[in-house]
Every structure is written in C-alpha cells, then in structure tokens.
C-alpha cells in the first residue's frame, strides 16, 4: 500500500509545483555534541586562517552566528507561537523568548539569567556555553572568546526582530561557587540602538 501511494504521487504531479508543500516539522531535537564541536572547531580554524587579528576573528564568528540566529528565530517563532500567529513587538518579551525558546532550540537548555544594566543594556548569562565548552584559548590569542558566535546569534535575532543592538560576549570573573568544572560563565551583553529605546518608551 505504501508503494502504491508513492507511485500515485509521482504520476499526478506532472508539474513539480503541484507536489504537496514541505512541512516545517517539529525540528530535530538533538544533535550529537561531538559533531557540533567538530563543525564549530573547523569554522573557527577557517576564520582564524583568514583573519588578521583577534577582533576580526570574533567579528567573523559573530557574522556566522547572526546568519544562524536570523534563520532559526523565524522557525522557532513559527513553531512556538501557534504556527506563527504571534510575534514579538516589545523588548522584554523578546528577550525572554530568546532566553527560553531560542536557547532551548539551539543549546538544549534555557539561558541562566537575563539582567538589565542600564535602560539600553541587557545581559544574558550562560554558565555552560556549548560553544565554548570544547575550546581552550592559547595565551597568544589573549582575549579571544568564541562565545562571539553566540553573541552573533543573539544579534541576528534582535536585528531580524527590529531591535538592532551591539552584542558582545565576555567571560565572567572566575567564581568557584558557580563555575562548572572551572569553566567561567559566558555573558552576552546587548547594547541597544537609540531608536529601539525611543520606540519602547513611546509604546509605553
């Protein structure tokens, strides 16, 4: 019976545009961590060989993350919000959506905390940032934080949703009480453009 169904589909669709549409589906919930680590390490090495300095490398990783963020935000939003019937037009609900749903779809868990610093600066924290888990930075690369990819991921989402911001990643100070296996917390700092703050206060 299965074979007959497939033959019928082929016969009926003389025009490929008549084939049934591809559903978005629920998305694959788990990907092997070593597979991701391998892919990410190759990407870092690729950009490292093409970058003149640390900030150029971080920028390249951020841009790569931004592409991922923009695309995954549309799909995550469609799946989570009753087939796309709702979207985020205010800042705080959007940040909470990023902290929970976007983080869960990308990293399998929610981000640890979301804090506000000034009226235009917000901070997301992740104690066990997947992107940094398998990375050890040699001394000669100094301040490099490959969490720049995650910062770019957030920047891509914010920009796509209409809340442009400068987003950067940096490590917290070592904190023996909170750090897992001595890995420092990764912080994602978001500094929003003036137009975002003005619109938010106008919308009240």
């Amino acid at each position: 019976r299965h074979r007959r169904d497939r033959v019928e589909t082929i016969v009926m669709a003389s025009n490929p545009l008549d084939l049934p549409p591809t559903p978005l589906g629920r998305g694959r919930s788990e990907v092997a961590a070593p597979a991701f680590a391998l892919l990410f390490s190759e990407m870092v090495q690729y950009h490292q060989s093409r970058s003149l300095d640390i900030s150029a490398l971080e920028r390249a990783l951020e841009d790569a993350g931004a592409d991922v963020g923009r695309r995954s935000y549309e799909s995550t939003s469609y799946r989570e919000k009753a087939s796309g019937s709702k979207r985020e037009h205010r800042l705080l609900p959007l940040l909470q959506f990023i902290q929970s749903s976007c983080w869960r779809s990308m990293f399998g868990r929610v981000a640890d905390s979301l804090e506000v610093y000034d009226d235009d600066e917000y901070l997301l924290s992740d104690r066990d940032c997947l992107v940094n888990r398998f990375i050890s930075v040699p001394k000669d690369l100094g301040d490099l934080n490959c969490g720049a990819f995650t910062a770019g991921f957030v920047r891509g989402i914010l920009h796509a949703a209409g809340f442009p911001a400068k987003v950067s990643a940096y490590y917290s100070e070592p904190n023996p009480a909170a750090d897992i296996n001595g890995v420092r917390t990764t912080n994602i700092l978001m500094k929003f453009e003036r137009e975002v703050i003005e619109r938010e206060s106008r919308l009240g």
Partner: protein
Amino acid sequence: AMSTPAPSMPPPSVAPSAGTRTKLLFTVINADDVPVYAVDLANAWSEARGIEAVVRELSIDDASRATTERDDYVFELIARGALDFVDERAWESNAAYLKVVDRFNDVNVYAYVTSTRVKFVLCAEMRADEPMRAFFADVHEGYCVAMMNPMRDEDAPLDTSEVFQRAVRAAARKRLGVV
C-alpha cells in the same frame, strides 16, 4: 426528522466573470523593504485551466484587455502604497495577521508580518478575513522552510525557491479557491 450536517463553507471563489480578469496579487517584501516575490494568484497558473482559460481569453475585448493590463500596475501600486500602513500596524500589536490595512476603491489590502519583519501583502477585490489568515499562515510555513537554506540571502528573490512556490500554490488552492 433527519437532519443533514451543514456543508462546510467553500473557500471564496476567484472565478472571474466573463470578459474580465480578477487579480489576486500576492507579494512578499523583506525587512529592508525589498520586494522578493510577486504573483497574481488568480492567473499565474492559468495553464492548468485549459479550455476555460482559452474561452475567457477570447472573450476579452480590446478595451477591457487594455484595462486589465493597466490594472496590473495599479495592484502593484496599491500594494506598495500600503506598506506604510503595514509598518504602523505592525508595532501596534503582537499579532502576525494584520487584516485589512488599506483600501483603494474595491481593492482590499491584507497584510501579515512574520517574526523577522517580512511582510506578506495580498491585494484582492474580495472580503474574507479567515481564509486570508489561513492562507498567510500556510505561506509562512513555506517561507520558514525556504529561509532555512543557508545559501539564500535576505534579498534573494523567492521565485527560485521551489519549496516556497509549492507552498504558495497549495495555500492559494486550499484557502482561496484558486484553481
């Protein structure tokens, strides 16, 4: 007494009256206001309608042909002109479906905004909220799938995406009664 269940509402028909051509212009405009897709849903796939399309084509006189050709541009102009209203409405609520954002004579402009601020705009002479909302939702799913392609830029035209075109065509048939 026996009662038969009420028939479910058929989708609104876009079958045009003899001698005229109904327009159902669907456009996709990205977040940077670059149009990436436009199609006249009522007429784009007219090869599928065979002899009826030929008869209809023959019955159009020159005067109304000139009118319908001019109408092509009018519908596009209406869609462009409505974009400001779409932007205004987009910041008023968190709904994706914005219903009718503008009207021009008999033409209603329906709009839908996705999470990444991509606008779906539909210009139609008919008035029907629920089918439009369902149409936009189906197309949105197709757009999500097309967007996942890492080779596709934000301003790349969508008519190269077979996935998206299949979704638009299926949605138009299922929700809007296009043949």
